[in-house]
């Protein structure tokens, strides 16, 4: 069987295929090597890293809602230094794009994390998580505001040597402005969306279902809204867009690509099926063959008139 060309050129980085595992849903990568060969992935984004370890939120941290998952993990993690010592060496020989999700509680911290990572090899790009709604109260974060996003992106761009993907939050009415300001500030790509600020209540006890009260909604429930945002943003910027939100099948991937995404990330689906991404990639290959598509990348931004 011949294979179709699934590869994607993001300009700063070439991917074997458009499917990247999303940050926070793929652990540090190693959790999944028990299920399949990580080299099959277009790439993967590791869990968000701050300069120091973070304890995370108290449980319950997860609640399931209709076709969705609300999480308030609170970005628990081992911090960038331990990551570089203990985990990165296990990832460095992989033949797939290893992307690091860079977090910060203030601008300088983003830059410090990126600078630390600059000292190590085997990383394809940094994904700036300017959009985590869990950390600050009420979900306020730099990604809600074009100026704050501009400041962080230009600061990190200046102080590090690797390509930057700025990951946007959907929790703003100004997503297009935020995307444009990230582009202006030198971001090499945009990824969207992060989770939607959400909550769930137990009507019997009148208590919130998450200890943090608020959390971020992901999964199939968010797909139509996320797709709309990817479509709107892709029309306004020239740098590549990486789309995500509720992808579980190859058809979802195709929709995002048609809407304007060059590549996609798959998140919550990894929990439901640890082999979800290899299955999606196989399906994409079959799709291209049955539809005589030579290069999958040619689908990007090809929404046809009704």
């Amino acid at each position: 069987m011949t294979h179709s060309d699934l590869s994607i050129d993001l300009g700063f980085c070439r991917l074997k295929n458009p499917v990247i595992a999303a940050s926070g849903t793929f652990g540090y990568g190693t959790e999944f090597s028990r299920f399949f060969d990580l080299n099959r992935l277009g790439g993967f984004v590791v869990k968000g890293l701050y300069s120091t370890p973070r304890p995370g939120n108290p449980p319950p941290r997860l609640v399931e809602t209709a076709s969705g998952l609300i999480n308030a993990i609170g970005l628990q993690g081992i911090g960038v230094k331990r990551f570089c010592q203990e985990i990165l060496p296990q990832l460095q020989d992989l033949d797939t794009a290893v992307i690091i999700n860079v977090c910060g509680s203030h601008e300088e911290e983003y830059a410090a994390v990126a600078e630390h990572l600059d000292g190590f090899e085997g990383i394809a790009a940094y994904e700036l998580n300017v959009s985590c709604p869990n950390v600050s109260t009420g979900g306020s974060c730099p990604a809600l505001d074009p100026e704050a996003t501009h400041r962080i992106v230009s600061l990190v761009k200046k102080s590090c040597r690797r390509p930057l993907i700025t990951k946007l939050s959907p929790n703003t009415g100004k997503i297009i402005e935020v995307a444009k300001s990230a582009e202006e500030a030198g971001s090499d790509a945009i990824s969207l969306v992060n989770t939607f600020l959400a909550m769930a209540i137990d009507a019997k006890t009148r208590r919130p279902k998450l200890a943090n009260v608020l959390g971020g909604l992901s999964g199939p429930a968010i797909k139509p809204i996320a797709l709309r945002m990817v479509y709107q943003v892709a029309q306004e910027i020239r740098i590549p867009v990486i789309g995500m939100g509720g992808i579980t099948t190859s058809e979802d991937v195709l929709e995002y690509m048609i809407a304007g995404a060059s590549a996609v990330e798959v998140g919550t689906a990894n929990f439901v099926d640890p082999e979800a991404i290899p299955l999606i990639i196989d399906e994409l290959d079959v799709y291209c063959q049955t539809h005589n598509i030579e290069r999958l990348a040619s689908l990007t931004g090809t929404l046809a008139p009704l």
Partner: protein
Amino acid sequence: MYSAILFRTIFGKTMRKDPQARILHKQNWGDYFILALESPRITSEAHPGQFLMVRVGETSFPLLRRPFSIHAVQDNALEIFFQTTGLGTRQLSLKQEGDRLDILGPLGRGFNLDIEGSTPKAALVGGGRGIAPLYFLSESLRLQGVSATIYYGGRTVEDLPLRKKFLAAGYPLHCSTEDGSYGFKGLITDHLIQDLKQNPADRIYACGPDGMLKRLAEISQEYSIPAELSLEAIMGCGFGACWGCVHRLKKDQEIGWQKICEDGPVFPAEMIIWEKE
């Protein structure tokens, strides 16, 4: 086949997906169900206290897999024992013999079966559906020459559907119900304390509601009996990727939120930090 289980390292990291585990048979008592699932490889690798993540449907609602302890293993099949408490378990209860289930397992770290002493004795304490892993555990302990006494508590007699199974297998069984409809009237932990006087134990193994486990951690200290407790938490993945399933634990002198799906769900009582109510 049991010996293969026993001589394997307890904390083996093997786990796999079996998308086509066939339901061989089904049993039902009120809200409680047993499904026997044919899955040779997962069965041969299972250790008591480990669990499965089960997909209850094919659509996105319910979305996540549901965690269930491995209740029993026999030949090529393993059993889960569950109580219907919500949408996912209700859907699972509608499955029939011959249907196939997508399962992941065996997951987590189970009970430590090594007990000191020449004729070691273990007290196995199960509250409600928490009895699930204790059958597999009792069968494995028996093969190690450990004599297991079962303490099985529930709100009412309807919550004790497995009592006949344990009796049929020949285990000494003590039951309690909060309403006094069967056995000792009161909490199973009080029944245990009463019985420990005549029937001392070298180890406590338990699974059940937090209140029961917390009380057992105290009993473990008071009576100097090491205890291994199986915790529950809402799980996003079951294999260490989401960091959703945390509990306060003391590990290497550090106290923090630890994932119970990887390091547990079974922990020595002294590792578990109980939050204030």
